[in-house]
């Protein structure tokens, strides 16, 4: 069975940029799959989606959506896609219903069909009661939900969602994640980008980890966590927020520590067994005159995977 999305050695280099924004990325997304691209800000997630949405032409390589090439048949690609951009892309002086009507027409909908789909979309994101109000009066969460509704209005077989939960309240975030799950249960293929590992963990069948424009890991959650060998993460909060570089060096020399890094006044450690390593870690901090303000231990997760692969925390 052909993949719904097939990306082959994709490169996108912006004129004048020292390095490509997307650098030889290849992956496949099967029909009915939720695939997440996980990476920090500036990793190349949005540029990858822009190329797949035919907003940017690839420098080299190609991508196919539903068998249509972004290079040779962009209109064929666009007809299959629903796109939910990272920023809310709506007309604020228009009402929700007016926005949906307008975007529906851009996807070739009209008449009774459009009317019905507008009503469905409003129900789907819980905005039917507010449909006649101008979007400029909406809260951030409501705007995000409407932003998603616009992308789903024409019943696309594949939807691209670019960090749809950035900057919204927990309730709206929950609602959006549930919407993605529901859409996938209905058979929709979803390509989702995020820098929140919990979202990628919760939603995805498979995850691609991207950094500096390169896809550095790809697999299911289990496959990826196995990469770090089931290691735990210890995070030490340091009083005064200054982490001496000597302490990091000393921690790296400890036999029970695989990796150590300093970020935002905290020390992050990858260790095979947190219980066994913790005493030596605390002692090393004391020996360097560093006072510990807090300790957190995490089981293996995508954060640990990213730390393992890049030596940096995902949130940076």
């Amino acid at each position, binding site marked *: 069975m052909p993949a719904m999305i097939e990306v082959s050695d994709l490169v996108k280099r*912006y*004129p004048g940029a020292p390095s490509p924004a997307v650098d030889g990325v290849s992956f496949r997304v099967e029909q009915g799959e939720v695939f997440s691209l996980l990476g920090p800000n500036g990793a190349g997630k949005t540029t990858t989606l*822009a190329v797949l*949405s*035919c*907003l*940017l*032409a690839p*420098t080299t390589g190609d991508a196919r959506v539903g068998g249509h090439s972004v290079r040779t048949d962009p*209109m064929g690609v*666009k*007809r299959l*896609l629903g*796109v939910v*951009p990272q*920023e*809310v*892309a*709506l*007309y604020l*002086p*228009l009402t929700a219903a*007016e926005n949906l009507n*307008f*975007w529906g*027409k*851009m*996807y*070739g909908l*009209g008449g009774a069909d459009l009317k019905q789909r507008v009503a469905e979309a409003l129900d789907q994101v819980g905005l039917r009661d507010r449909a006649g109000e*101008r979007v400029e009066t909406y809260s951030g969460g409501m705007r995000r939900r409407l932003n998603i509704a*616009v992308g789903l209005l024409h019943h696309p077989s594949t939807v691209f969602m670019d960090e749809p939960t950035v900057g919204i309240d927990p309730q709206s975030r929950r609602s959006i994640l549930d919407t993605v799950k529901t859409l996938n249960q209905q058979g929709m293929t979803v390509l989702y980008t995020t820098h929140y590992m919990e979202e990628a963990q919760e939603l995805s069948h498979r995850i691609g980890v991207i950094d500096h424009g390169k896809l550095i890991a790809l697999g299911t959650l289990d496959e990826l966590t196995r990469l770090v060998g089931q290691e735990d993460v210890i995070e030490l909060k340091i009083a005064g927020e200054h982490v001496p570089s000597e302490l990091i060096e000393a921690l790296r020399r400890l036999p029970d520590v695989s990796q150590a890094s300093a970020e935002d006044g905290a020390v992050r450690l990858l260790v095979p067994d947190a219980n066994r390593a913790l005493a030596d870690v605390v002692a090393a901090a004391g020996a360097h005159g560093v006072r510990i303000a807090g300790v957190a231990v995490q089981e293996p997760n995508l954060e640990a995977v990213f730390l393992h692969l890049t030596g940096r925390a995902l949130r940076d």
Partner: protein
Amino acid sequence: MRKLWAIGRKDLIVLFRDRAALILMLAAPLALTVGLGLVTGGFSGGQTGLRDIPLVVVNLDQGPLGAGLTDLLQDDDLQSLLEPAFLDDPAEARRQVEEDAAAAAILIPQGFSAGVLPDAGGAVGPPAAIELIQNPGRPTGSAIVASIVSGYVLRLQAGEVGAQVVVSQLVASGRMLRQQIPVEAPAIGRRLAGNASNFSLIQIESDVAAAEAPASFNPLAYIAPAMALLFLMYTVGMGARSLLLEHEQGTLARLRASPTSESQVLGGKLFGTFLTGVAQLAILITATTLFFRLEWGSPLGLAALILAASAGATGWGAVLAAVTRSPSQVGSIGAALMLSFGILGGSFFSVELGPPLLQALARLTPNYWGLQGFTALASGGTLADLAGPIAVLWFMGLALFLAAVLVFRRRGAARG
């Protein structure tokens, strides 16, 4: 075409929901039209809905013709137009005109009736003329008074009024029976008309005003389209700004991610600007017609000119969108363009007053061609008279649109 219409309609709605834009698109040109109209005396004409023209009347005539004229000036039909005040002193009447307290003074001399109507013995007294003193500062108002008085005098000289008066006097004195009126009245009228000498029964003072008044050009017929065209350039600037705003706000990318071609998106945006311009001009023209009773000319020519003016201005809007990089840049460059085109194109003063270079540059602006068309139309021009300005405006719009498309393509290629 459906997508073009949908994008254009959406832009029209978005812009008309922007209060600040509405103020500049509609309220500002109307306010300036009113202001400049007051300064230039554009509201002192009957065509502009003038009411209550102040007028002083001195009737020294003891006879029925003087009374007939004063009755006419107080007639129900003229009640809203004229506001006559009756005095006894001709000097006082003259002073009121000089001090601009009245648009005109009518002095009916003693013996005016006697100079026209024969007495019982058939004798006619020495002729005496009505004196009309016009206020040059109120050319249209005083011209209206002059036309009313002239009309009365013309009827008098044709024998109509005199015959009516003589017949009513004969009936009242019992010297004529009512049954005799149909036969006798026309005969008396013919006799009176035959008596009419070359002597004019009306003398008009203030020659300058009298000469200008009948053909007075209503300044509003120039000011209103000049202001509408000036602010049309603001509207097309807003259209250009909306394209860059859509780029900033992400809706342009979303449009391009939908199965809508680049040319449909750009065409739709410009169509929206064009529609908004048409709506703006139509509203301003309707408002000035209703509020100021301004006559714009043939509706067909007007419609053709509105479409052409909006097309020409939209072409400039397209170029503005193509050469600017941000909405704030459009704001500053657009304002400069609007003012320069206003000055060059004759929105503030007639292009003919400027040096030859200015006159040549004026032809690059939609303001100039629009004004040529609107003034020709207001002066009674037909669709054929407008062919030149309309053709130039459409050509301007199309050529600039194509130039803008080329710039957009070049920028798109550079962006990769």
